[in-house]
């Protein structure tokens, strides 16, 4: 049985507000609406379980860090650090998000309608059944997918407020040693990190992209067909051991 509760964040410091959230979860709440959120940090941080959150207002830094399981919908923009070291669950952001989304994320999904800032998806990693996925509807800043060790980043470049910017900033995928970055359309060559190239998708890639796009479009009320009505490219690491030959025993 779903148990619904609404918590009002007006004028409450994050520490007390997060305590209220944890208490609500401990008391069995499963559908939690957070209203009047105004940059309170660490919302839904390290919370575990099959829970639903709706966030009204703009959540603060490190939302859903270390989170394991919940589904979180943000009705507005989000700030930096969304899904830091996230383990599992789904985050849907109906606006844009700031820097460092999904840092070292290990599982779950982050769907962002609009643009994201710098350093998104750095050091994402997959493990066993865990396959972290980030979809960005808009454009991304520099260093997208740096050091990526696993998982999927899908960059659409469609719902952007930055018409004159390239779809991804500099150093896309630098140091990547696992995972894959899919980009709708083309990425300018000079934006891609050293040693990497954008390649066409094969059949299995296409299936993966279609699956993710369908889910993404459904969650955000978008038209999957329109999103898929373009070619995509993929950027994959050239080696799983990028530093394998760097050293000599002293």
């Amino acid at each position, binding site marked *: 049985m779903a148990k619904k509760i609404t918590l009002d964040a007006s004028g409450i410091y994050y*520490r007390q507000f*997060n305590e209220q959230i*944890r208490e609500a979860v401990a008391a069995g709440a499963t559908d939690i609406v957070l209203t009047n959120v105004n940059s309170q*940090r*660490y919302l839904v*941080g*390290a919370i*575990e379980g099959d829970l639903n959150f709706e966030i009204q207002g703009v959540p603060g*830094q*490190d939302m859903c*860090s*270390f989170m*394991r399981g919940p589904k979180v919908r943000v009705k507005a923009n989000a700030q930096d*650090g969304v899904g*830091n*070291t996230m*383990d599992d669950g789904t985050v849907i952001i109906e606006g844009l998000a700031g820097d*460092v989304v999904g*840092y*070292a994320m*290990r599982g779950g999904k982050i769907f962002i309608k609009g643009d994201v800032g710098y*350093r998104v998806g*750095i*050091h994402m*990693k*997959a*493990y*066993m059944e*865990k396959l972290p996925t980030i979809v960005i509807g808009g454009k991304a800043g520099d*260093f997208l997918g*740096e*050091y990526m*060790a*696993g998982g999927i980043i899908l960059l659409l470049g469609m719902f952007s407020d930055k018409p004159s910017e390239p779809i991804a900033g500099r150093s896309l995928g630098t*140091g990547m*040693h*696992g995972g894959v970055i899919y980009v709708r359309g083309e990425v300018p060559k000079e934006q891609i990190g050293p040693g990497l190239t954008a390649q066409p998708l094969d059949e299995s890639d296409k299936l993966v992209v279609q699956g993710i796009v369908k889910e993404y479009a459904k969650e955000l009320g978008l038209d999957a067909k329109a999103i898929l009505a373009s070619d995509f490219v993929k950027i994959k690491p050239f080696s*799983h*051991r*990028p*530093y*394998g*030959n*760097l*050293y*000599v*025993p*002293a």
Partner: protein
Amino acid sequence: MLFQPINRNYHDFSIVRDKDACINCKVCIRQCAYDAHYWDESRQKVMHDNAKCVGCHRCEALCPTSALLIQKKKSEFKDNALWKPEFIKYIYKQADTGGVLLTGMGSPVGNIPVYWDKLLLDASQVTNPSIDPLREPMELKTFLGAKPVKLEFGKSKDGTPKLKTKLSPNIELNYPLMFSAMSFGSINFNLHVAMARAATELGICYNTGEGGLHKTLYQYGKNTIVQVASGRFGVHRDFLNAGAGIEIKVGQGAKPGIGGHLPGEKINEMVSVTRMVPLGSDAISPAPHHDIYSIEDLHQLIFALKEASEYRVPVSVKIAAVHNVAAIASGIVRAGADIVAIDGMRGGTGAAPGMIRDNVGIPIELALAQVDQRLRDEGIRNRASIVAAGGIRCSADVVKAIALGADACYFATAALLAVGCTLCGKCYTGKCPWGIATNDAKLAKRQNPDIAAKKMVNLVHAWGHEIEEMLGGMGLNSIESLRGNRDKLRAVGLSDTEMDILGVKHAGR
């Protein structure tokens, strides 16, 4: 031009086999992880290849007839004050391969002073008599974490006084000592079990290092500090809630400014499960945490971790000792850390580029003295404990560190020496013949967790007794009275600048 690789000509060690004593039992062949010994079919006897020896002394220790002697190769280059042999060999190796020089544990650069050896301790004579620890109580108990500025008391219903001040969480240690971070992966599981058991028996803590925590070790959580590094390997909510403290690793003394890199060869099944990374692929920790580019960002991560652990445990931040360490430490304390761990340049490592290991950072003694002073001057010393790491060799080093301002010391190399490490410095090969820095099942079996734990416990007991004796000698009956008590230290042969930085007088003054 030489026709064979240079390291075959200018290797470091010679294996000397006493022909009369050798019984061709082949123990050395089985013990050497580098295949330096081999069975020669045609000659029907054990032979060896000097060029392969790394000087670990394993074969020498296990040879049943003591027929083996491992010694430095006698062949020497012509004396040269500038071109010491290691520099000559470095160039040969790099010219052959184009590679970055990789090193392991050790600190071969000789001309950076070891300040521990230039500091002397005090003892009481006539006045303030010395105390015999065998006869009188001696307090080594140490609490790590933020301390309140003042205590407020109220009255409970029955009229007895009651503490009103809310205390911050602290880690309680029976000795001012902890096993420093060595990740599971860089050393094997047997040693993690040993450290966990030893720490539990001793009532101290060990640090998981950055490789996560194996499920079977959660039971030792009360004596565990869990570490979060830039790679975030094995970091999740259960891990963060498993220990008595959480440590953010920003830097390591042996390789400041460099990330970690566990080569795929060392990632076996168990390491893979614990780190949550695929089997056999490299586990790379970027040099910085890419979510920390400023003190404000550090504050953000510290509190993300405090939120994740519901403020139940102190958060430590570990940095390498570098030039502006005092200002950095001040920022760390202001960012909300409860413990600042400072790792000096002589700290151990499983793998570090040699140039970084030997040239980057500063000795712990100088860093420690400056950090303690700075936090005092700023009136924030109570907000965080200081843990000194990087080159603690004996109990006197611990006592000196505490007199310079440390609350406790981390030690790791000494713990490995306790279980047989001979500092061969080849940890990065993953073939440690002593079964320490290896995940090869055949080699790892050489460490029995029970015996290893016992040795670690013995070492800390021994150091504990010695610390008590040194304290007693100074007329102190609690380690608390020694903290930052630099009057108990005197320097020999240091310059005015060095003494000023250390905050100590010269011997004789």
